[in-house]
């Protein structure tokens, strides 16, 4: 089957929240396609096809991208949201006072849970404490709230969060949504992942959960009581998320008009859809980068010159074109998303096999016995390149890279593995080179887990290349502590320059997120925030509400 579907278990579980802005394709959803459709009206049901079932509608325990989109944009009300330029905007918090040591949020009055109970600062503190509790083992608490120390309720509509240290982009710690304390206070934190609440959530957002048929569909219905100050009742009556694992089937349904939105379109399909006037294709840079990681703990790749040479030996533009990404990818040199305000906009190292050969010769690698493979001290430059067997894109990319490396005299032996086996080799640093991807699930740039020396030798840490450079450590510390955005950006630019020289990983490309929208639903907008960023504005003309 298709390449990217294979990852199902893994990709579906990728914990990530879309962030950062930019890209995207113009606003008006299907309006361009269906001709003039008049003024927005309420009513109707939109059908969205998604790839896999949802995990848990609980911001503290969920780790799946699409689930968290629904949590943030439909079922619950995060403290802040983002505008198209990725500036934080008021949502549950109508205003805030931010300092270097703390932030005070003033919550909106009149927001209620779907069961009618008022949403107060107590709920926000409860959720924060739950996420931070060790027993919960929450992704939210352990990954996103590391810089937030404490939550104090000032009054029912005011809450103060204390920081462990001053840091840049501090508001980005608060993209999450509170949970109802009155329904969850009796659940033990260690049992939260299995709480029945996760499947029958009582939220506070513009939509309520109507039904969840496992493996088939999730139906959300409009919350008529949603406060006007936060956007009021959504225009649609219902949004049905249908679970359709096979990409071709999702495409067929979109083209036949039996679904209105295809939540994940493959690059080759997107190319095909772009020629169809009835379908609107949205694509924008994701925060997922595909890379070739070099195991720096192996002598072969301990030398930065070798890694730099190998990067220059790989023609990354070819991978971004057909028949791989069909142009739905962006080049990137650093590991900071191209869409992040902190991205330095550095040009990637150019594809230059001659320079690569020269660098390798400098590092002592020459073809002394004339067999076409470089050698040094009698050892040929031969290594294992591992990747996931279930991801056809990756194994295709590996084959192309193998060819390109051969041209500079490097012999890469491709080995594909079942995903979990691959992950174990990756985590324990028992590999030479690996093709895989990371998805940033953070609004803030924080590459420390991937590249800091402190993590470099720890077993199963996220620094799986074993890269360690005290200079990089110092820059990352400085970048995280900088509270002035301009200053932070300067530090990250310097950091990106250093990484460019060290090449702990070769960034192959940043894949784009692609969504397809049929002619029925109007005013759909998808951008780097989420594919559901303006779901409350979607509407269906009265004449087309009945199928």
């Amino acid at each position, binding site marked *: *089957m298709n390449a990217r579907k294979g990852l*199902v*278990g*893994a990709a579906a*579980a*990728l*914990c*990530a929240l879309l962030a950062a802005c930019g890209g995207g394709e113009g606003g008006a959803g299907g309006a361009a396609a269906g001709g003039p459709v008049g003024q927005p009206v309420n009513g109707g*049901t939109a059908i969205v096809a998604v790839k896999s079932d949802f*995990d*848990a509608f609980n911001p503290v325990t969920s*780790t799946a991208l699409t689930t968290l989109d629904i949590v943030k944009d439909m079922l619950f009300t995060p403290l802040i949201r983002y505008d198209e330029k990725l500036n934080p905007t008021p949502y549950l918090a109508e205003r805030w006072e931010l300092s270097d040591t703390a932030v005070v949020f003033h919550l909106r009055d009149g927001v209620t849970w779907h069961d009618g109970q008022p949403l107060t600062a107590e709920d926000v503190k409860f959720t924060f404490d739950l996420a931070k509790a060790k*027993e919960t*083992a929450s*992704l939210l608490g*352990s*990954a996103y709230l*590391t810089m937030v120390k404490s939550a104090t309720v000032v009054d029912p509509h005011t809450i103060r969060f204390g920081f462990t240290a001053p840091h840049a982009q501090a508001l980005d710690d608060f993209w999450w949504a509170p949970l109802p304390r009155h329904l969850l206070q009796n659940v033990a934190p260690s*049992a939260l*992942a*299995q709480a*029945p609440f*996760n*499947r029958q959530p009582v939220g506070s957002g513009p939509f309520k959960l109507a039904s969840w048929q*496992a*493996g*088939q*569909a999730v139906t959300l219905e409009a919350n008529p009581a949603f406060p006007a100050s936060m956007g009021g009742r959504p225009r649609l009556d219902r949004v*049905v998320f*249908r*679970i*359709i*694992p*096979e990409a*071709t*089937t999702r495409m*067929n*349904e979109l*083209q*036949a*008009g*039996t679904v209105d939105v295809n939540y994940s379109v493959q690059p080759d399909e997107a190319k095909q859809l772009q020629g169809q006037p009835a379908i609107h294709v949205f694509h924008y840079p994701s925060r997922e980068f595909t890379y070739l990681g070099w195991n720096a703990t192996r002598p072969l790749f301990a030398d930065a010159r070798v890694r730099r040479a190998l990067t220059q030996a790989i023609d990354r533009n070819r991978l971004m074109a057909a028949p791989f990404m069909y142009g739905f990818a962006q080049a990137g040199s650093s590991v900071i998303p191209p869409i992040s305000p902190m991205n330095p906009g550095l040009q990637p190292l150019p594809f230059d096999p001659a320079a690569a050969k020269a660098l390798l010769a400098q590092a002592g690698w020459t073809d002394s016995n004339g067999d076409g493979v470089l050698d040094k001290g009698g050892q040929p430059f031969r290594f294992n390149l591992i990747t996931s067997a*279930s991801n056809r894109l990756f194994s295709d990319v590996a084959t192309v890279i193998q060819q390109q490396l051969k041209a500079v005299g490097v012999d890469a032996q491709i080995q594909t593995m*079942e*995903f*979990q*086996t691959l*992950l174990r080799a990756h985590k324990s640093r028992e590999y030479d080179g690996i093709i895989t991807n990371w*998805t*940033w*699930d*953070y609004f803030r740039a*924080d590459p420390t*887990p991937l590249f800091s020396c402190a993590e470099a030798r*720890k*077993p*199963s*840490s*996220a620094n799986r290349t074993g890269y360690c450079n005290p200079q990089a450590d110092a820059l990352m510390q400085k970048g995280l502590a900088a509270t002035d955005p301009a200053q932070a950006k300067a530090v990250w630019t310097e950091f990106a320059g250093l990484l460019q020289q060290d090449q702990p990983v070769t960034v192959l490309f940043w894949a784009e997120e692609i969504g397809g929208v049929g002619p029925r639903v109007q005013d759909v907008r998808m951008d780097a925030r989420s594919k559901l960023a303006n779901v409350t504005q979607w509407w269906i003309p009265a004449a087309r509400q009945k*199928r």
Partner: protein
Amino acid sequence: MIGYLLRRMLGAIPLLLGILTIIFFIIHLAPGDPTARFFSPQVSPEVIEQMRHNLGLDQPLHIQYLKWMKSFLTGDFGYSLGQGRPISEIMPEVLWNTLQLTLVSLVIIFVVGMLIGIVQAVRQYSVADNVLTVLALFFYSMPTFWFALMLSLIFALKASQWGWPVVLPSSGMATVGTEWLGRGAILRDRLLHLILPATALGIGTAAGVARYMRGAMLEVIHQDFIRTARAKGLSERTVIFKHALRNAMIPIITLLGLYLPFLLSGAVLVETIFAWPGMGSTVVNAIFQRDYPLVMATSFVIAVIVVLGNLLSDVLYAVVDPRIRAE
């Protein structure tokens, strides 16, 4: 007969426990574990350890095994780690979904397959026989996933684009909004949704059954007792369907016993393509996610079905063949 059945069932118990024990250790020894899905770079190894502790995965394997066995023997399959809900809730749902699909395709397989086989045998070497042989070979050699995609392309997408009177749904079990309609409409909608996946699942096997049926039937038709039946003036219909068919059934019944478990567990491709939430996709996802309790529960169900399938075909032998009954 009853005593025989009981003996067979009792004999199956140690077999099932053995299978489950082996699967338990195999799946736990496979690399990775359910926490692998938390692969955000920001999650520290300590948090992963805590998750493993919450799930009881930090205990020694034999303790985990004994714990699992104990709750299994008390009828508790535990929680699915991937879906976060009790397995007792998942299994009936998934089994019923699969059963609807496989029963319909089982009917297609045997009714269509046997009819074609009989026609071919009765009209051996006729044009119809030759055409059907080629067709059967064609469908038999077709990869299921490709056939499924073609069905969906033609009868769902192209049918709607070309304005055919009937457009079949290409995925899911029900049309959105049907739940507010009457029983009749719901049933009709479900049947429409079943056509493509059941055909895709059944057609190749039906072609195989047709080949078996033709062979078995030909062997029987040329035997003396058929000539006797014809000689005593029975109608051709009675000769074929009553005398010949019954004797040609033995190999087909063996097939039925073999296909039964296959149909309940091996429909992964068809289920995925047509978004049918059944056993096949549940098993595969559970294995990929290392959702141990769900892997164990589904293995148990599949093992039981294999055992029952074999038992069923043994019983059916006895029904059609008096000689076996006598033993």
